[in-house]
């Protein structure tokens, strides 16, 4: 256990070194936030809808930008796929640690390192923007606490999906095509492309029955009070079940893959 913790710390520290990249990244997020804010406010100027109000939608937009690196499904560690492709995964297997956990920690640490460098300036900037473009304060204390909890769970969930997609590389060798297809679909269903309350019809139903919506839709709507606590608690329960299922699937795939791996060379 101690080994895993110190590995997490080491990876986190390594991730925190990339400060210039963070400045560039958060500038990018500012601009994207502004673009989305402009798009949605334009629509609300024409008509208003009852599904979600503008202020809740702006919270959604800015939280998405501030925590993008924590929850965006496309964040991955190239070195994992790389080690599968070029065979250096053999070294990883020599470690007296569980490979699944090892990679899992690496991915989570990367997400936390990225977000720690980026979220604060974006949040402050978004709070200070003039209405109606701004991020509001949390609905109340309880919804804020539930937001924090679901953000944490969302990170666990999204990483377990990453692990499944990564493990597939053992079977296909070149999985960039497949993974970008999966990530594009997931991006839509988790609410990155368009906040889920604005969806309707079949896509909304699909989104409801897939795990992706827990990644960001749930925490963002808890934050703005769009979801009440009772629904929130039920959703968290459902999310925990999904997490367990995804963790098991990921482990099984990796186990299957590793049983077929034969290591060559001297």
């Amino acid at each position, binding site marked *: 256990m101690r080994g895993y913790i110190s590995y997490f710390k080491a990876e986190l520290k390594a991730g925190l070194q990339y400060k210039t990249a963070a400045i560039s990244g958060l500038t990018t997020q500012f601009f994207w936030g502004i673009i989305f804010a*402009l798009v949605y406010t*334009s629509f609300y100027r024409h008509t208003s809808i009852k599904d979600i109000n503008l202020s809740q939608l702006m919270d959604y937009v800015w939280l998405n930008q501030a925590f993008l690196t924590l929850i965006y499904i496309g964040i991955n560690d190239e070195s994992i796929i790389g080690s599968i492709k070029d065979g250096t995964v053999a070294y990883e297997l020599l470690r007296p640690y569980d490979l699944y956990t090892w990679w899992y920690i690496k991915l989570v640490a990367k997400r936390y390192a990225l977000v720690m460098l980026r979220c604060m300036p974006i949040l402050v900037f978004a709070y200070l923007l003039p209405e109606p473009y701004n991020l509001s304060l949390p609905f109340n204390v309880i919804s804020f606490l539930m937001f924090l909890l679901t953000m944490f769970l969302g990170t666990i969930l999204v990483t377990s999906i990453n692990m499944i997609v990564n493990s597939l590389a053992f079977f296909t060798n*070149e999985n960039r095509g497949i993974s970008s297809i999966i990530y594009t679909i997931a991006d*839509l269903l988790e609410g990155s492309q368009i906040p889920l309350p604005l969806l309707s019809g079949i896509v909304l139903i699909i989104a409801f029955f897939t795990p992706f919506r827990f990644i960001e839709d749930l925490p963002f709507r808890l934050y703005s009070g769009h979801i009440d606590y009772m629904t929130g608690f039920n959703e968290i329960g459902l999310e925990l079940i999904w997490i367990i299922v995804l963790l098991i699937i990921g482990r099984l795939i990796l186990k299957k893959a590793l049983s077929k791996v034969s290591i060559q060379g001297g």
Partner: protein
Amino acid sequence: MKLLLHYFSMHIKVYLEYKLNFFLTMFAQVLILGTELFVVYTLFDKFQLLEEFNINYLFMVFSINWLGFSLAETFGRGFDEFKKLMKKGGFDILLIRPRNIFLQILGNDLAFHKIGRIIASTYLLIISTINLIPEITIDKLLLIIFMVLGDFIIIVSLFIIGAFFVFFTVEGLEFINVFTNGTKQVNDYPIGLYHKAVGVIFTFLIPVALCNYYPVEYLIDKGNSFYYFLMPLSSLILLGISIVIFNLGLHKYSSTGS
């Protein structure tokens, strides 16, 4: 031109070596276009604006925007990925050759896997045009081609300006992508939808609205001035500026190698 074609045909051959992955990546590219189109449709539907904005009109603006952008991404990748060329020292090799440097950079890379988007947006453009303007005339057809080319030139110009910064930072600046991707994102929707200030930026600073928004008025017989044909030409001004800027960087440049 012959040189450029030769460069491109070589790149296509490379891409076709990995067939399965090529087709999957291509499919993913089309899927991205598909989801964005879906988002545009959903928003207009949700806010009950489909009566005010004809759906074929929306799809036409969208597809011209995407076609221009995809063409730029495919053929302008040499500038888009200029930092890679610079880091590996490949740029110095190009400088030694007695050919035009712009052509060489353009020919250096080709994002052939983005061709899926070109095909998909062309298809969408044709369908929406047929539905929106059943009796199309030669002049309107010509204007549509002008509009696509204008969009294409604007995005390539932005790539060139982005490449200029590579001379100073070598690493390149990630947030430059905001100007190209962001321009595309904003122009997925008709500019008239936005606050006036947004319209001003995309008319005078990055003149995309002159390529894929205002000229549509001519296409749907809302105006018949000759000026609509001049609007997409504004992209050439931006191209000129970007080339001048790039050359400034080129003069300051003194190799990354030893």
